[in-house]
């Protein structure tokens, strides 16, 4: 691999695309270009010439400047010290870069992803002894990376052999050797707390695992209506301002994943700052620890070089797979996959490749599918089941879902949370449209809900969706002939749908009480809305006028209830349900009395 590299030189600079003359270079190899040493990656070869996409701006580079192959493809460093960090699109640590180069990112900086000086307390695996044969994923020992996350030190996927030495417990830096093995050729290899892995190559595992466990996000319209499973793939498409980023950040905050990887791919700088500033303060509802302890960020904001944006998704995924291989459930959020696709388009355009739709190259669909395919629940080599859930935001131009990235994504994913501009404009958040969204996991999730929360979950969900569909129909009628045409029963249906929308579906990320909603509270609210509707309907059927019911103060309470009681106060929601019951019952009695009096 690292034989003597030839030196070459720059022939042409066309924005981020640089043609170099460097015989013997390989496709995919990392290259350093020019006096500044800008890093790039070979994307095509023709004779002596190689086309390189550079991760940094090429301003000031001249034809004739040197170019040098580095001998390896774009790789990331995998080891303790990833969590809590913010990396750029090629895994350079942005906080350290700020110390070194100030507020603006200087070019040509080559900082390693992992801290070289930091010492970690390594605990060797007591079940291992020299002489044993070890291989991909063997757990050599552990390091407590953060309070809650125990980092397993794994044998890299491409190594097998006989363990000849395992270091005793103690403090080590990531480059210190902690084990030796002898491979099949008899070569001795030393292993450290970290290893490198090429980002474009999925990390191997034993096999796919069919186990089922829902990803609880604490967001009602997701968990209760369009659920996601751990290891699933989902997309959040929507026009600007519809709430894609908030959905992703809410999942990052409140989901029951062990590890969260948030990739800001071509989006706003301030959105990453928001995460960086708030996560160290926020508490994980599952462990009580600070959220930042289980989170890592990859940031290639919209103003950062476009080629590194293309890489950032793979960099994030590889780190996600690495934690998966330790047996963790990882959720990776990519905001936005459209910016990734645009980066692909920009490079292909500069290469003069034939565009097929809206300028995108023909391989868009297959690359997208390959990315999502890296999600999944797997049986790891030696650490039990682990999963990567991948949720990508999609930013369709003009909000048009028929455009290439949205339509290809839709064919690939299992969960589709379609955001609607109309709902967002009316400040119905999250603006997940219940008509066009779907989840392929409802049946699977139902098993979990029925066992863990309530056996009526699926029927309640169906009833709610039916009521919302009825609402849409009735609203059409009202818009044609006016509300006078509706019967009292139909008006009560509108009221019921409005209860579902306001009391259940709407959930403000900014509401301190309601921002996270436990599954138990989710069901209690859904049941409250539906049983209020059901009871009301029995009254309407015996002739109680709808206006009589609409004026009940308890209806306003049912709408506000989500913000009044926390997930620990589900009993109070059930109390309210009883209160509404009683109010309805007394109306019924009064009404029956009037009728016998008449």
């Amino acid at each position, binding site marked *: 691999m690292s034989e003597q590299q030839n030196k070459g030189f720059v022939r042409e600079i066309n924005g981020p695309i640089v043609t170099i003359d460097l015989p013997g270079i390989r496709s995919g190899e990392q290259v350093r270009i020019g006096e500044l040493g800008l890093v790039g990656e070979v994307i095509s070869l023709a004779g002596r010439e190689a086309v390189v996409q550079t991760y940094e*701006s090429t301003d000031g580079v001249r034809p004739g400047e040197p170019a040098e192959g580095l001998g390896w493809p774009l790789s990331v460093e995998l080891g303790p010290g990833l969590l809590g960090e913010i990396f750029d699109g090629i895994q350079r640590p942005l906080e350290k870069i700020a110390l070194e180069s100030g507020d*603006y990112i200087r070019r040509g900086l080559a900082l390693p992803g992992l801290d070289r000086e930091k010492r970690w307390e390594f605990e060797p695996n007591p079940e291992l002894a020299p002489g044993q044969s070890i291989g991909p994923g063997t757990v050599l020992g552990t390091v407590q990376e953060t309070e809650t996350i125990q980092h397993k030190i794994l044998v890299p996927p491409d190594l097998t052999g006989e363990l000849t030495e395992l270091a005793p417990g103690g403090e080590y830096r990531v480059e210190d050797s902690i084990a030796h093995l002898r491979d099949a050729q008899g070569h001795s290899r030393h292993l450290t707390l970290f290893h490198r892995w090429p980002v474009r190559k999925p990390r191997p595992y034993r096999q796919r695992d069919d186990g089922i466990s829902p990803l609880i996000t604490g967001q009602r319209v997701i968990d209760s209506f369009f659920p996601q499973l751990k290891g699933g793939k989902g997309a959040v498409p929507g026009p600007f301002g519809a709430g894609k980023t908030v959905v992703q950040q809410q999942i990052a905050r409140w989901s029951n994943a062990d590890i969260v990887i948030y990739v800001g791919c071509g989006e706003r700088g301030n959105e990453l700052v928001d995460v960086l500033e708030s996560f160290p303060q926020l508490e994980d509802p599952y462990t009580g620890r600070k959220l930042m302890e289980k989170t890592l960020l990859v940031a290639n904001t919209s103003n950062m070089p476009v080629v590194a944006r293309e890489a950032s998704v793979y960099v994030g995924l590889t780190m996600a797979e690495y934690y998966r291989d330790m047996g963790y459930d990882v959720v990776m959020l990519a905001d936005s996959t459209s910016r990734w696709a645009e980066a692909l388009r920009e490079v292909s355009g500069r290469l003069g490749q034939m565009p097929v739709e809206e300028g995108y190259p023909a391989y868009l669909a297959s690359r997208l599918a390959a990315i999502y395919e890296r999600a999944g629940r797997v049986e790891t080599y030696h650490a039990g089941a682990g999963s990567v859930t991948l949720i990508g935001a999609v930013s369709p131009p003009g909000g048009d879902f028929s455009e290439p990235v949205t339509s290809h994504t839709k064919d690939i994913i299992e969960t589709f949370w379609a955001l609607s501009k109309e709902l967002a404009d009316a400040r119905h958040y999250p603006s997940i449209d219940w008509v066009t969204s779907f989840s392929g996991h409802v049946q699977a999730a139902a098993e979990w809900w029925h066992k863990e929360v309530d056996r009526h979950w699926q029927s309640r969900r169906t009833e709610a969706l039916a009521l919302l569909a009825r609402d849409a129909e009735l609203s059409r009628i009202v818009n044609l002939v006016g509300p006078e045409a509706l019967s009292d029963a139909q008006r009560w249906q509108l009221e019921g749908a409005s209860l579902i929308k306001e009391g259940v579906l709407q959930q403000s990320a900014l509401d301190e009480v309601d921002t996270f909603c436990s599954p138990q509270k989710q069901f209690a609210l859904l049941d409250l809305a539906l049983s209020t509707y059901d009871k009301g309907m029995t009254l309407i059927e015996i002739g109680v006028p709808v206006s009589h019911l609409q004026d009940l103060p308890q209806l306003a309470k049912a709408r506000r209830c989500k913000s009044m009681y926390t997930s620990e106060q589900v009993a109070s929601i059930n109390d309210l349900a009883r209160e509404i019951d009683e109010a309805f019952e007394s109306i019924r009695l009064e009404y029956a009395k009037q009728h016998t009096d008449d």
Partner: protein
Amino acid sequence: MSIKEYRTASEVRGGLILVRDTPGVAFGDRVRISDGRGGTRDGQVIRASNEEVMILVFEGTDDLDLEAVWVRFLDEPVEIALSPEILGRELNGLGEPRDGRPPILSHIRRPVGGSAINPAARSYPREFIQTGISTIDGLNSLVRGQKLPIFSGSGLPHNRLAAQIVRQAKLKDEDSSFSIVFAAMGVSYADAKFFRDEFASSGVLRNVVMFVNLADDPPVERLTLPRTALTAAEYLAYDLDRHVLVVMTDMTYYAEALREVATAKGDVPARKGYPGYLYSDLAEIYERCGRIHERHGSITMMPVVSMPSDDITHPIPDLTGYITEGQIVLSRELQNQGIYPPVHISPSLSRLMKDGIGKDDTREDHPKVAAQLYALYARALETRNLASIIGADELSERDRRYLKFADDFDQRFVGQGESEDRSIEATLNLAWELMSAFPRDALIRLSETEIAKYYQGDSG
């Protein structure tokens, strides 16, 4: 390095010149072109190999004679000279005087291209700016370091609104005003004059630097103008510790100039002929605004984007909205009803509002008042729509209340005088007055405590 000079121009098209056999020219460097008749033009290398260099000519390539052209590679990036003296000046897209006064002399020269702010060096913007305009302060609050564009259309009063904001914008309880960087791209002489007169009459002129490229100036210069203006803004903010408000008008003409050049270069188009990199290109401009750790100054940006055919899904407003931290959308319908400023709140948004308002910043009820007003107005618009189909007489009493609210809201909350500077308290009080037309139980987005404190109605 010696300055290289060549007579080997081989091709001219649409703002671009190709020059042959030019070894070692750096990508991005500045170029001076002599037209052979005593005139010079400025350019930038946008593609470089030893065999051929492609140059973008800021003044355009009209009337260039290939045989006569001389090209000098200046061996430096495109830069601007900066000193406190830029305040009060009017410059062009390359930072050269347009006001007949001498050029800016300074040893401080900065490349206009800028580089990306490290996200880890940013601070989240949270300081509320009171603009005195209810639809902005109350419902789409602006904070220091935010980029909040005005989406408008031809004939709508975006310039008047921008000027009113420039006049009135201040931090709550603070008098320190903003330094203004004004960037005009492709606007009419009259529009530029409007702003110049505005700045003069409100007495802020010595705190303003104007970068101007008019409709009849070379379009290619528009590509560098916002970058030059932002380089000046960065100097004012980070070298001189000022809070800078950048007004850029009109981004649509900027993007059209970009399309023109992209087409000449033969770039693959994405939507409506705009190149696929329009998003990244706009982001390079917009993302230069913000707050940075331990820097005293800040850059707040208010670009004007006119929506071709009032279409918010057109690539320019669309891509802008995908980058900026919200948008203020003007509506022709409100304008036709004589309402100023005709801000349509439904599609308007401020993404950075959440941390700039509330108890410690404006008033504790502000977040929920905004949410409630939005919900009421959304329902009111539906009702208005219904009334237009079936007639207002057919509406229920409940619905009629919403209809009345829609009208009151448009007239009293949205509408205000061009010199009316409402405090945030006045805006919130007005909101409560309007909301109090509804029974308490209709105001479910407000907390019961807030209702107890501020509700003025008698019903419910």
